């Protein structure tokens, strides 16, 4: 009510005044009437009444001052005057706005990414209740859960609303001319219940569809619905066809379309079907294939859930000692699993842009100080005309506010482009499609503008209103040089910090490119072929099929060799296994822990990993074979040769026991940035979803893409080829996050250097300007021009050298924070720090030389006449 009243007054100021006038004149009239009734004449009564009311105008104004309107009007007037003042110096205004746009824009851009990826809850109802579940076996890093066990967990726990699981595979849809690759997730019952998400069209799975032998049904993604069905609202009931051969395709009816925001378990998932828990092949407790997800009950903490499920599992352990005693459940918040990996990179970027904003602020403060100093006379006049200090400060701050808001507005344009920048540089960044501008980002950038206003404006406002009237009319403001030079020094120091960090990251990326990986990634093409987990029931048939494909590939002109593997060399993956040797090892000897890779025998030739001892493995009829790398042989078989030894992995049901046929060179299999670790290679042509084909070509691998696609289509017309790309592309994509932070940090550091440069240039120019008269006099008295140049140049260099020194100190602290993002350089890398200092001093010379030369070119007579 009261605010409404004020608002009304605000909107109709003249009406308020009018009403007050009417009310007051009514009062006077009444008074006159009364006084006349007491016997006064009309004139006397009028005069007395007016006298009694006091100064009429003052009353009106006092009443009006109660109004918020007055305050607002003052503010608006301040802003108007400030805008006029800024319009008069377009150069200054443009510099400051551009500086702030860069600072606020970059900051807002990174914040929008942090907000979308890290801060906002995942796009599911009550996403904080969602967790991932895995089973941990001390012998085997194996996060998948057996269907039976998952169903036991769901039945026996007291802390979850529901637990479900899924696995996925790439399949081919064969309705069209060519098979179309689709990623299908097979989900356990309760899947949509756990997510709390309903199909946007159609329905969830019916109970009958979740049982073995029940009717088949598929939910499709919004993407597939738009791509394939052109967003047809009557899509429910239409059929998709899946099959491993042209003739044996199975038609599956669509029962619904999921919302666009639902992209689980994979961003590119197309389909969801049920995976019956009661299938006969899913009964074994040792068969693990689900990734588990669950939804906690409201107000249940993750620790309670962990304790509860651990108790459930230990009960299962005593019931099924053989399969369950060793296992423990592993529960992690889903959000952490999704975005935890990029947290450090994003906060590093945010820290960097905050430094950049700080530099921008410092820069603007220095510019404002110069400007306000030049306006001392004007401020003095304001004071002498009776302005209060507060009103002059308000006036000065209003200018800064306009600058900051304009900067923020421009900066928002920059931030709007952030999403596409992130998408270009790192398309694998989780939740990247959620990055964008919304009102919260707007509020954030506005808040930045407010903070900037205060941070940049307050110092100049205080300094320049602390004037006494007598001093203000003269133009001696040399005293404030020191503070401006200090601010420039601060900018230099911060720029050095950012440059050093960026330099180290760039060097790391460069080192990564130079590293010798132990295999030859050039001219290698990789791809996958759609297949299904159900085919793994007959491993021999799968092996025959793959060998047929490999033979077909090798027969192509332009192909050197071909192989399959279950992982891509050089792309970070871990599959740690524990092995036992037939030799028998003493208790005191360390356990044999190694990375395990499953590859076809052609792998080593295709990747040019040299065989150092023994022979390349072959697939033999009655024994499984394996290769080990040099690190493995050196670590575990120092005194004897591993060749001919039998090694077995506990719990591996595919390959119980295999014989070592040879030793190969160390390759950086588990990521280019990781030292080769002891590794075993099972020579086993495994056919299951996720198997990679690796082909060495004679020329540029991309040129072979079409040939290979066609060859596969001839051999396997019902299967689609996907993720067909050069191996170096795969490796480079795996380091996209590295690249993202390196490129962005390098950009921020360059911007920081530029700003520091502009700051130095501006300040030296200003000092030259202020001391024109002195310079003119000295030139007139015979000073050499080189002396003048030397004086200003050394002033600039001194500031920048001090800034560099402080900056190196800061950099040493800052780069320690990123030490685990570095590869091949130490955080105190001398070469990087030296080049940073050289760059900064170089640009400092340029930035101070220009105004110094300008000073030396002054015409003494001209200057002295102007004064």
């Amino acid at each position, binding site marked *: 009510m009261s605010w409404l*009243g004020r608002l009304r007054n605000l909107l109709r100021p003249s009406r308020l005044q009018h009403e007050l006038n009417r009310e007051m004149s*009514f*009062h006077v*009239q009444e*008074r006159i009437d009364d006084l006349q009734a007491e016997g006064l004449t009309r004139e006397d009564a009028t005069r007395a009444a007016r006298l*009694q009311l*006091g100064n009429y105008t003052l009353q009106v104004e006092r009443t009006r001052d109660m109004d918020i309107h007055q305050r607002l009007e003052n503010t608006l007037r301040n802003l108007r005057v400030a805008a006029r003042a800024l319009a008069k110096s377009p150069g200054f205004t443009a510099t400051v706005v551009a500086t702030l746009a860069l600072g606020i824009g970059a900051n807002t851009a990174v914040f929008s990414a942090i907000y979308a990826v890290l801060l906002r809850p995942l796009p599911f109802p009550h996403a904080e209740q969602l967790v991932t579940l895995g089973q941990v076996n001390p012998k085997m890093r194996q996060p998948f859960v057996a269907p039976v066990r998952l169903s036991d967990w769901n039945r026996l726990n007291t802390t979850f609303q529901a637990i479900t699981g899924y696995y996925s595979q790439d399949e081919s849809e064969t309705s069209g001319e060519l098979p179309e690759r689709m990623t299908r997730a097979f989900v356990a019952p309760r899947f949509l219940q756990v997510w709390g998400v309903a199909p946007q069209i159609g329905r969830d799975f019916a109970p009958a569809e979740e049982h073995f032998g029940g009717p088949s049904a598929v939910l499709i993604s919004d993407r597939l619905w738009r791509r394939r069905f052109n967003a047809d609202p009557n899509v429910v009931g239409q059929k998709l066809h899946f099959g491993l051969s042209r003739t044996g395709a199975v038609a599956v009816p669509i029962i619904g379309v999921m919302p666009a925001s639902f992209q689980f378990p994979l961003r590119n998932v197309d389909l969801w079907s049920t995976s019956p828990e009661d299938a006969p092949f899913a009964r074994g407790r040792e068969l693990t294939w689900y990734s588990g997800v669950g939804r906690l009950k409201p107000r249940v903490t993750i620790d309670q859930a962990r304790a509860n499920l651990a108790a459930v599992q230990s009960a299962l352990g005593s019931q099924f000692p053989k399969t369950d005693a060793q296992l423990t459940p592993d529960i992690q918040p889903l959000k952490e699993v999704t975005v935890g990996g990029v947290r450090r990179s994003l906060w590093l970027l945010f820290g960097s842009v905050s430094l950049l904003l700080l530099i921008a602020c410092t820069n603007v403060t220095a510019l404002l100080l110069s400007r306000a100093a030049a306006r001392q006379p004007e401020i003095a006049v304001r004071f002498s005309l009776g302005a209060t200090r507060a009103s002059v400060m308000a006036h000065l701050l209003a200018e800064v506010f306009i600058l900051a808001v304009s900067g923020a507005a421009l900066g928002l344009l920059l931030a709007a482009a952030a999403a596409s920048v992130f998408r270009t540089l790192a398309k694998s960044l989780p939740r990247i499609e959620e990055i964008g501008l919304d009102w919260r980002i707007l509020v954030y950038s506005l808040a930045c503008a407010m903070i900037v206003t205060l941070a940049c404006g307050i110092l100049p406002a205080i300094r320049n209103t602390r004037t006494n009237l007598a001093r203000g009319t003269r133009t001696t403001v040399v005293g404030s040089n020191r503070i401006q030079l200090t601010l420039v020094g601060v900018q230099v120091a911060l720029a050095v910090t950012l440059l050093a960090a960026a330099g180290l990251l760039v060097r790391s990326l460069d080192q990564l490119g130079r590293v010798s990986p132990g295999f030859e990634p050039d001219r290698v093409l990789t791809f996958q072929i759609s297949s299904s987990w159900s085919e793994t029931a007959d491993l021999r048939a799968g092996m025959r099929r793959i060998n047929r494909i490999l033979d077909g590939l090798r027969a192509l002109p332009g192909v050197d060799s071909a192989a399959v593997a279950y992982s891509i060399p050089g792309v970070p993956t871990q599959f740690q296994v524990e092995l036992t040797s037939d030799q028998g090892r003493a208790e005191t000897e360390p356990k044999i822990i190694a990375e395990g890779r499953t590859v076809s025998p052609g792998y080593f030739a295709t990747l040019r990993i040299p065989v150092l001892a023994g022979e390349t493995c072959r697939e033999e009829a009655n024994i499984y074979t394996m290769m080990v790398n040099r690190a493995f042989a050196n670590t575990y078989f120092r005194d004897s040769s591993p060749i001919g030894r039998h090694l077995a992995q506990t719990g591996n049901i595919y390959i119980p026991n295999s014989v070592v046929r040879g030793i190969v060179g160390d390759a950086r299999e588990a990521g280019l940035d990781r030292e080769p670790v002891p590794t075993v290679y099972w020579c086993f042509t495994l056919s299951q979803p996720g198997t990679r084909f690796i082909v060495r070509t004679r020329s540029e691998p991309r040129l072979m893409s079409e040939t290979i696609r066609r060859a596969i289509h001839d051999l396997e017309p019902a299967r689609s080829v996907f993720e067909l790309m050069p191996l170096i592309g795969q490796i480079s994509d795996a380091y996209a996050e590295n690249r993202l932070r390196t490129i962005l940090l390098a950009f921020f550091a360059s911007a920081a250097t530029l700003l520091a440069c502009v700051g130095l240039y501006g300040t030296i120019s200003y000092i030259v300007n202020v001391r024109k008269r002195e310079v003119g006099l000295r030139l007139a008295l015979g000073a050499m021009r080189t002396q003048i140049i030397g004086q200003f140049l050394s002033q600039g260099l001194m500031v920048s050298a001090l800034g560099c020194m402080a900056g190196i100190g800061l950099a040493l602290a800052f780069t320690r924070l990123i030490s685990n993002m570095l590869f091949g350089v130490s955080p105190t890398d001398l070469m990087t720090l030296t080049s940073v200092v050289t760059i900064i001093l170089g640009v400092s010379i340029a930035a101070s030389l220009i105004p110094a030369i300008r000073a030396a070119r002054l015409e003494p007579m001209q200057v002295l006449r102007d004064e």
Partner: protein
Amino acid sequence: MGTRKNDILQGTLVLLVLKTLTSGKKLHGYAITAHIQRLSDQLLRVEEGSLYPALHRMEQDGWLRAEWGLTEKNREARFYSITSKGRKQLAEEQENWNRLTEGVARVMRGAIA
């Protein structure tokens, strides 16, 4: 006017205005002054210069409602009436006032003794 000038203590004006309006009648500014003067036997005199700013502020605070109307003499005047929020405020102000007078009275008694 002949009466001794007795300006209203700072802050009590609001109390007096609200009290004046508790009857529920709508009064214009002049009537409010007259009412206070009459009830206080001319002991209290409302200064017009303070009254209108105060009325205005009280309206903005939502304690009073104001509307234009005609007096018996057919003049346009702004009539004020108390709101429920105003009544609450009155209770509070009255309480404060009582405490103040009680306190002052005690001090004065003490000073005499």
